[in-house]
């Protein structure tokens, strides 16, 4: 077998067998399973079936029923109970946890309702808002009947205005599609971000380990450093694809199993029902290109350090680039058509994440995506050629060296004259 393949499979199989790899894979699988079963898990812990219990003390004796009706139109999950007892008793029950809170309903001089809401902490704002709007509506109804409006008149007053959104751009995404795209892009961005950081780290560590254990010198006397570098990058690349394949297939099946319960939660809002094929293809392309870009960078940075302890310090600038790209992408999720996002999507170190964000969320002309890919490929080629030269010299350098001056020194080593 060719030396290239021997190194590639050696790297791949050895990493596959390491304890740390198996543990991270299992842990992440657990997280994937937990996420796809989120609704089931919430249901297990939620004794009241997801409902908020609120005690209502009605001093007037006539507000409870209409109030309950109004609140139930706003949120079915709020369960109101008429409390037969004193306010002090109700407060006690709230403190004991039988109720989320209590509402004290009263009428003022104008025969309009007002209320006090008491709860353990006022952090639970959605519930408060629901109760408030319920009371507001009740008040409106009562006030309207006081000024003798007929139900017809009342209905006219509250009829929603017709207001339609239309995008002029061809194939522009609808609001629903945009939300859907946002969820998908968000998840894929996370995958790209974590994979790039994790596997680039792995490559830098691998190179530095070989160097610090001095096995490198034997290796480079039998296989050229350039062959080694690429065999390693592709070997780890295969590893990353293996890991992703495991996550995605387990995630997919678990998702299918729980599809009904998930539709109501997070996944319902950011629907994953039908994922556009183009988005997936772009995700794969940008994932692979992003991986190669940062893997090449990591390999040559790793070749410059002599001790494993220095690896982190050496690759910090690279990690910063990835983090910066991710931050910009997170901002872009909310405003994908900002000029800033358009510009950064053509900067090769950010392209994998931000160009992907744009193709995922907007309808941009194909040439823009292609230019992004071309710039990325050109950068990778340049980095590979430059990186291979640094690597070749870097692996022979030992000592306290871990600064960027060493790049120059490493290049000097490989020079002829």
């Amino acid at each position, binding site marked *: 077998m060719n030396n290239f393949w*021997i190194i590639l499979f050696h790297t791949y199989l050895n990493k596959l067998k390491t304890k740390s790899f198996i543990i991270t894979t299992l842990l992440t699988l657990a997280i994937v399973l937990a996420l796809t079963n989120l609704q089931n898990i919430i249901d297990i812990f939620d004794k009241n079936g997801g409902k908020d219990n609120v005690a209502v003390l009605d001093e007037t004796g006539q507000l409870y029923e209409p109030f309950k009706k109004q609140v139930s139109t706003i949120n079915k999950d709020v369960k109101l109970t008429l409390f037969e007892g004193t306010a002090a008793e109700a407060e006690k029950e709230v403190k004991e946890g039988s109720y989320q809170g209590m509402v004290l309903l009263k009428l003022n001089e104008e025969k309009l309702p007002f209320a006090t809401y008491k709860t353990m902490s006022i952090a639970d704002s959605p519930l408060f808002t629901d109760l408030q709007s319920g009371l507001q509506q009740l008040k409106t109804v009562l006030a309207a009947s006081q000024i003798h409006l007929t139900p017809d008149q009342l209905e006219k007053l509250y009829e929603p205005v017709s207001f339609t959104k239309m995008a002029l751009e061809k194939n522009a995404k609808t609001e629903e599609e945009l939300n859907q795209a946002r969820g998908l892009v968000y998840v894929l961005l996370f995958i790209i971000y974590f994979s790039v950081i994790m596997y680039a780290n792995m490559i830098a560590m691998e190179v530095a380990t070989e160097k610090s*254990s001095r096995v*490198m*010198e034997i290796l480079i006397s039998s*296989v050229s450093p350039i062959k080694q570098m690429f065999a390693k990058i592709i070997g780890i690349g295969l590893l990353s694809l293996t890991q992703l394949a495991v996550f995605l297939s387990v995630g997919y099946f678990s998702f299918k199993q729980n599809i009904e319960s998930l539709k109501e939660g997070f996944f319902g809002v950011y629907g994953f029902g039908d994922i556009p094929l183009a988005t997936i293809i772009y995700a794969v392309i940008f994932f692979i290109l992003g991986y190669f870009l940062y893997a090449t960078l990591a390999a040559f940075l790793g070749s410059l350090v002599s001790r494993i302890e220095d690896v982190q310090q050496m690759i910090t600038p690279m990690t910063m680039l990835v983090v910066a790209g991710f931050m910009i992408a997170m901002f872009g999720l909310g405003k994908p058509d900002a000029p800033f996002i358009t510009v950064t999507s053509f900067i090769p170190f950010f392209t994998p994440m931000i160009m992907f964000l744009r193709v995922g969320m907007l309808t941009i002309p194909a040439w823009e995506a292609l230019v992004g890919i071309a710039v990325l490929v050109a950068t990778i080629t340049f980095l590979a050629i430059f990186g291979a030269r640094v690597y070749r010299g870097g692996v022979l350098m030992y000592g306290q060296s871990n600064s960027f001056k060493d790049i120059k020194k490493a290049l000097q080593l490989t020079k002829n004259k």
Partner: protein
Amino acid sequence: MKPKIVIFVIKWRGVCGMVLKLEHVTKRFGNFAAVDDLSLVIPEKEMFGFLGANGAGKTTTFRMILGLLDTSGGRITWDGKPIDYSTSRLVGYLPEERGLYPKLRVRDQIVYLARLRGMKKSEVLIELKSWLERFKIPEYENKKVEELSKGNQQKIQFIAAVVHRPKLLILDEPFSGLDPVNVEMLKEAVLSLKENGATIVFSSHRMEHVEEMCEHLCILHKGSPVVHGSLKEIKRSFGKKNLVIHADFPLDFLKDYPGVVKYKATMEGILLQIEGESIAENILKEIVNQGFIRKFALEEPTLNDIFIEKVGGSYE
């Protein structure tokens, strides 16, 4: 003695076999010349010793021979061609800095490295077994390298360098850090490889190893060869001899005796370095009537003497 020199001269001209030739090799790092105008011819099936203080340029020379570093000037050829990755299957290398994958088992390690040198896995396993048995460590085959002692790691690394039966073997400080028993074991292994037809180049700063094993050698000092040739020739042309005298009377007057270069008192007598045999004769005449002489021996200079003389005692 004479016939051997004749054979040697024929070999020296590179008529026979896979000669390793260095012609005016120079390596500069910036303004610093690590190796300066080094020319050597190492005939096939020879054992060639490189001597030099730390930083003399031995490792750099080896790296250039292996093609890991490019030369700044000059040419290195083996069998008429430069060594590159197409010939790397015929070359074995034991680097000065010992290193193996700490987390890998001995067996996987050797199999991986030997496969990179073009061997099949099944062949490697047979060879590995016989080497481990030879070094009396067969039980380590399935141990991780980090669990082995340093000496045993070194043996494993030696196996990694020779398991593919290289024709050219480069050993950078092969015996450093080993106990005497292991040094002997490794020496025997090196000699048997030589008998099987390998050309061996090795470096050391232990004079006695080179003296014992090499027909030819080169002393490097600050990148330049200061002594170069066959061991016997080098000793002969050095001219100076050692004279050991053990006697019952004081010998200090010999300190300033004409022709005495160095004077050193030892436990039982004195050790002199003299300019030639005739001086020894004069000294013997001088002291023969002064009392009882227990020992009077004229000896060849040791490599150590030559080294110190040529390199200026600056080593280690």
